[in-house]
């Protein structure tokens, strides 16, 4: 297995990807944006059949990913993991700028790398500074984000969960995947 950096995307012509990433919170300002989610999604259209891969990442305030999931029906490829991380990580800059200029939680297509598009959902609440990153497609993204947000709040209510740490819950994972199937 060759571990060559496949970052020079010579993307197949009919591959459309969307990506999304996360968001930062300035600690000095009152916690206005506390949750941010980001979404990104890769869609492959071939012969009219839509196969999609999406990477969904929830990012905490310190730019640390606390939840990662590869969603979608396309077969998981070995080399995509670090690509997704790279792209989402790079999109954080844009999100940081953008999050303070708008009151919308859902930021569609904030960043773009080649065919990959990053969408972000910035959660705003006074409770805890957490970001979420999701990777998504089309109209379902927003609903997906909102539902995942609810799930995430449930996780936060768990007294055993330390905000900002990795989300170890397999229940959460299953739920997110189910939602992804529903909306994607």
């Amino acid at each position, binding site marked *: *297995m060759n571990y060559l950096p496949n*970052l*020079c995307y010579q993307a197949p012509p009919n591959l459309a990807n969307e990506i999304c990433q996360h968001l930062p919170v300035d600690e000095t300002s009152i916690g206005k944006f506390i949750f941010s989610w980001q979404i990104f999604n890769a869609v492959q259209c071939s012969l009219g059949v839509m196969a999609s891969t999406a990477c969904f990442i929830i990012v905490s305030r310190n730019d640390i990913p606390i939840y990662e999931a590869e969603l979608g029906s396309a077969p998981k490829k070995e080399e995509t993991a670090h690509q997704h*991380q790279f*792209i989402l*990580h790079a999109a954080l*800059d844009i999100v940081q700028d953008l999050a303070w200029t708008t009151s919308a939680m859902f930021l569609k297509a904030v960043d773009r790398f080649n065919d990959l598009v990053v969408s972000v959902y910035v959660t705003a609440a006074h409770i805890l500074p957490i970001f979420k990153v999701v990777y998504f497609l089309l109209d379902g993204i927003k609903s997906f984000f909102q539902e995942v947000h609810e799930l995430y709040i449930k996780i936060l209510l768990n007294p055993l969960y330390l905000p900002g740490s990795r989300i170890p819950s397999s229940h959460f994972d299953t739920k997110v995947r189910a939602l992804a199937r529903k909306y994607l």
Partner: protein
Amino acid sequence: MDAATSSSYLGKMLIEEITPVVMVITTPLVEQSCQTNGLSFVQLVQPFCNFDNIDVPVRTASDQPYRLHQFKLRLHYASDIRHPNTEAAEEHLKQVVTRASDNDLTDFSSDPPQLENLLQTAQSESQSSRFQVFNKELIHASSFSEHEAFDHPVACLLVVSSKDNEPINKFVDLFNTNQFPSLLNDGAMDPKILKHYLLVHDNQDGTSEKATNIISDMRSTFGSSECRMICINSAQNESGDRQDNPWAIYKSDAQLGQDLGCFLNFDDLSEIKDLMQDLSSKHIIPHMEQKIRVLNQQVSATRKGFRNQIKNLWWRKGKDDTPDAPTGPMYTFSSIESQIRVLGDYAFMLRDYELALSNYRLLSTDYKLDKAWKRYAGVQEMMGLSFFMLDQSRKDAEYCMENAFSTYLKLGSSGQRNATRCGLWWTEMLKARDQYKEAAGVYSRISNEEPSLHAAVMLEQASYCYLLSNPPLLHKYGFHLVLSGSRYYISDQRKHAIRAYRSSLSVYKGNAWKYINDHVHYHIGKWYAVLGMHDLAIKHMLQVLVCGHQSIVTQELFLRDFLQIVQQLGKTFEVFRLQLPILSMPSLKVIFEDHRTYASLSAVNVKENLWKSLEEDLVPAVPVMRTNWLDSQPRRKDKDSSICVAGVLVIWRRDPVFGFGGADDDVASGYTRGTRLLEGLNLNLGGGVLMREAGGKSERRNHVLGGTDGGLYSTDGDKTVPVGTRRTIPGGRGIVLEAIKVDLEFKNPLKISISLSEVSLICQLSVKADLVESEIHGQNVNDMDGHLSATGFHNLEMEKLKSIWEMKACSSSSLVPSEVDFSLDGLKKTVVQLTVTPQVEGVLNIIGVRWKLSGSVVTYHNFDSNVLKKRVKGKRRSAKSPSSTLKFTVIESLPKLEGSIHHLPERAYAGELRRLVLELRNQSKFPVKNLKMKINDPRYLYPGRFEDIKAEFPSCLEKQTSCERSNVRANASQLSGEFSFPEDVTIQGEATFSWPLWLHAATSGRIPLLISVYYEMDNLSSDMRYRTLRIHYNLEVLPSLDVSIQISRCPSRLKEFLVRVDIVNKSSSESFRLHQLSSVGCKWEMSSLPPNGSASPSELLTAGQALSRFFNLKDCGKSTYDGTSSSPSTLRGSDVSLGSEGGKDILFDISSTPLADFHNYERSHQEKSIEVCDFSIMTWASK
């Protein structure tokens, strides 16, 4: 024109790059003359084409006068005036990049730049000459295109040598030959260009008389103003050292070695200078000015004005029908479009940007209507640049550039070079206006279209733009560096690749995006390995080894590559604290034997509390001498922790009181800790708890110690270090030395299996004399600590461990650590037991562990720094430092008993009675005496009498006619489970001693059996008088019979009762045969109902079967029942045989030991104060 604009980088670049081209045609003899200087003619003249300080008056088309102060001519051979060959250009660019990497002075071994310094370096990096040179070369790669006029030659310089035959004809020949560039021949530009005739005379070939004649001929033929003559090579010999060599910047390093222009003297140079200045100011500029006027008039006549516009529209419309041929020779030099373009470009070159812009505007609509996209894009590009130079509308400028860029891209490969050039100008434009973020975006767009090498350079520039934007976009910076690095690698520029990746590390350092970190470190490591820098490669590879989140394939790849690099290194690689496998420090468990010895591993695992409570009365109390009330507390703790001798050892645990190392000693080395520990130890034992060693030696040591840590320790001659006696051991040879065992848990974080070999402890055994030295050493280390960085500290620790390891290897006689080899499957944990056996007295310090991964990577891991960190965090002084718990004082060997119980089953049925044998072996040569034993619960286990061991079981329990049984012993000490062996019992050296035990499985369940055997040493030193042997077994007791009894008064007789006994076999498979029911004591007489007793056919109870029997009970005792009195006559009636006829004869005597003893324990356990009647049922297992 704005000063700021023209002083920007782009402004300067445009003034330098978009300048008139002069076509040069020479004869071979001219070149020959020039080559004596190591230069071609163009190279010779080139440095003098740059005029920074001229003053040429110019008039615009509308007669506005202005002056040009700065000007430049570009000289090219006619053969060079063509579109550059793609491959050649590619090759040239590659060389440029390679040269830059060779010149790159980056020190690869230094740490990557810190994030804080990044911004400072970013400015210089982004403007470094590396990028500028590359960008310039990239722009040149697209020059001499037919669709733009500024690369078209403005003038032609014909050069003939005075040596040529018939120079006049030569001039004519030169211009008539077919070697003209295709631009002229194809009609893309006007072949009637300004001509200038130059005669070159080589002074080495003789005087200039002949040349003077020729020049006069030329003047008469071509016109006086168009002809010039220059003399070169006037210097007689190599004048050499010219201070400011004007060619230096034009030539590459390789050629600089020669003395360029060595035959040119000052006159020659000034002559050349004059020539070029005249050429530009007197010929070229006026010529261009003239042409601008002419063209402007022409354009005005045909295109300006309302009428012309209408006409043009009409005419254009008709043209729409023609096929779209953007690249075809649709526009010759005579077409009005080409003329407008020439007009615009000339105006641009003469800095009349207003005129240029208006013409470009006019042209762009035309081209757009004609769908001549390449030309359209070229015009848009120039419009953008004009806007920029005029510093007018930024928006328009950007729009034009964007338009041009995307139009070029639409053209496909033919427009790619131009797109790149346009993009570069665009980025410079954005950078000049501090729009770095946008500039970075443009760089990325350029990189998408370029081959990987160019893309790499573009992306690297993009990354610096992100860094320079406000606020700095660090994430993007890192990402683009990585992108650029991977492309550098694809194009074989490894050094560049490494540089890019290394810079990106500063962004990704310490962040939780694991895949990113793995990718970056892995590739840096790999590339370093390719460059042969293996140590650096390994440093980076180490970062990716622990990659549990990666897939199996990737993990294998990482590990394989890592091991490969280690192999290439050519020696075993040593690393400190490799996290593969992970050593779980909380699992660290030290097993040693002091006065407590263990018979088996299971005994070790029993909690110390249980043993302690068991042995409470068994062992003699440690005499605590209180000197004052302050002493009492620590001393008591000492009792728990510090007395231990193991064949050879004493362990000292650090008492909380002595955890005085604050934050300052967190960095302290193990030596220092050792020193402090000893101080603590001295204080602890100050009262003479253990043995006292007199003499000056200890006093001296105290002095040293006191010096190291003044206030805490008072120098007191009385306090001694309790090491073993100095006496030589009689018969010391052959004594089994007792090992210290350390249990460690290794966890494999990977999904693949790894193999470990030579896993072994690193220990240090200091003989007492060494102690002082090591303390002093420790102090020295301590002094240095303040200046050590974290890495330095690690290195130091590693060095220390290594030296200790090697020292041990040299003196292998004093220590014998075990070595273990094993392999760990993916994600598995394994507990490994490592042992070390000290051979001489002294202080043994277990410092760490060492293992070899896959046979090539040696890892040293010390035990204490985890705790060190904890201390820093929590300031918890009470946390015991492992370094202190792992310090042992080794003393001389002592006897040790080993023990086991024979015949103990793992499983028993409730109520089962067995005879066991306790066997004790003395492994040493010394006898032990004063044996005592204590058992945790005598209900289950009870020591018998020595005779029992020989008796036959179970027949010894049968009722004997003689009825001579001793009384039941039941005294207090037996109830508590303590048992003293007879006083005369001693176990001689290497002897075995057996003693019977009775086991009675009183209740069902899992029963732990704890036995502690206490013994004393006879003739040895007094620091350890006794030891205990701890034996532990687990017994699983299964349920057997469940018996319930109902007693009711007999309705007919006053002193008789009816007894109903219900018996259920609760066992799962076993069958039982009932044998006998007995009433304990002599008060009751029992008989079965019906009286003959043979009525029961079912004395065999199979599993699950229930049975009821009835008995008659008669109170026969008028005498008071005292529980222990017994007489054979009264006992007789208390037993009823339940068995078959054959078994009727044999009845068991329930008043014999051990039955009666167990009965007593049972009673005392249930604590029923009034016991009227006890029954015993004897059964036989069916088998």
